């Protein structure tokens, strides 16, 4: 049995690089078993916030990242970084099996191949990253993330490198596979956030603030041509544009 997906609570979260405060005193709850999407302009600190949850950057000393069930966060996270981080000497299948190999588990080749096939990479299981397109690499990275099968999933712009149609397909697939997990998804695309998120936050400014949670009507995976969604998208774009001024 997979353990159930806990809330993740960030309290007074802060990160500074070289004396530059990216954000501080930030409170955020990622609701257990739901998708939280984070939107914001480039450089605002979205990736850094995600990495803070994964315990990959040192946070402010008084800040805390905790799981709602009292358990640890570390060890229950699947992390998909903004770069695909594929290892160049492994083929697609080897990259998907990386986690199991690193933990000394028996690699589940069949599952890795099924995952790759689901992502449209059935022909590419033996390809090395150097022989793949950017979109293929990103899909392999997604497969590697899904392979980890963790209750908490952190994804940084996972669909940025694929064409519009593939993106819709991958969104649907990810929504299906990651249903019931606590997901934090960073994206540049307001429509993607609105389509996939139970909750959407907009991150703006420096030090960065988070908007109040936006809860799009209906449940994910929402149709992209839903008028309510398109109206909300317009509003989100307006907000992001205001921040840029």
């Amino acid at each position, binding site marked *: 049995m997979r353990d159930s997906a806990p809330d993740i609570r960030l309290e007074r979260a802060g990160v500074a690089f070289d004396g530059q405060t990216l954000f501080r005193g930030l409170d955020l709850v990622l609701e257990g078993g739901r998708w939280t999407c984070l939107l914001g302009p480039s450089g605002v600190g979205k990736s850094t916030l995600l990495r803070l949850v*994964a315990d*990959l950057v040192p946070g402010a000393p008084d800040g805390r990242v905790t799981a709602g069930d009292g358990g640890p966060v*570390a*060890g229950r*996270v*699947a*992390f998909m*970084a903004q*770069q695909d*981080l594929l*290892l*160049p*000497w492994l083929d697609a299948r080897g990259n998907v099996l*990386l*986690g199991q*190999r*690193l*933990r*000394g588990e028996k690699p589940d080749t069949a599952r890795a191949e099924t995952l790759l096939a689901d992502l449209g990479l059935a022909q590419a299981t033996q390809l*090395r990253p*150097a022989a793949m397109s950017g979109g293929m690499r990103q899909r392999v990275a997604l497969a590697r993330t899904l392979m*980890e099968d963790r209750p908490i999933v952190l994804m940084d712009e996972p669909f940025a490198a694929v064409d519009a149609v593939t993106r819709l397909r991958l969104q649907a697939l990810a929504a299906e596979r990651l249903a019931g997990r606590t997901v934090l998804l960073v994206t540049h695309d307001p429509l993607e956030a609105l389509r996939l998120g139970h909750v959407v936050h907009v991150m703006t400014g420096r030090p960065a603030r988070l908007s109040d949670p936006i809860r799009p009507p209906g449940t994910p995976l929402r149709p992209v041509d839903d008028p309510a969604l398109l109206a909300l998208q317009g509003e989100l774009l307006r907000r992001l544009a205001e921040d840029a001024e």
Partner: protein
Amino acid sequence: MGRGLVTAIGLILLWEAATHLLGLPPYILPAPSQVATALWLRGEVLAHHALITATEIAIGLVVGVALGTGTALLVVRSPLARRWLMPVVIASQAIPVFALAPLLVLWFGYGLASKIVMAALVIYFPVAAAFFDGLRTTPPAWIELARTMGASDGAILWRLRLPAALPALAQGLRIAAAVAPIGAVIGEWVGSGAGLGFLMLHANGRMQIDLLFAALVVLAAMAITLYYGLDAILRRLVQWQPETLGRSR
């Protein structure tokens, strides 16, 4: 490779012509045809000494590479070793190892051992330094990913840092292949009773310059074979690297 061969043949022809036109005596510069004759007539002697030099180079390579990679792994695994050992390893680079040859002959005798030590010594540093550098410069994002996957330090070293360091190690090994024959031959020059280096000195002393050249040709052939053979193996090992380092040609 093909063009290199054409150039080499051209130079040899030029050399042949020059010796005849300038009337150089064979004890100054023998013609290639005379060297070829020596190669043919003294083949057995040359093979005997070549085998000895090849043995020194081969064992020296194995020992030097083992010690070099071992040091790099040790230093990467243990901060204590890094603090205490690395400064010495780096400083040892500044020592002209060849100047140690007389000492090595004194300590290890006129036989194979002193040449093997010599070859191993000259190989040791480039291999240790290159491999250490490669192990140290694994992209941090890969290590972060591995940590989120719950990997131990050992697993990260074995499955991530080691393969990621292979291109760097390959560069170190190429240098090793290039300097190992020099180490062995200098060891033979300083004191030995066999080997191509010994044969060259011996032939020189007796004005058998054609034999000296023949020994040189054999030595060069061995060194080139070693270098390109190793290079081919290394290329295959790190062929995943998009721009394989040092694509010569």
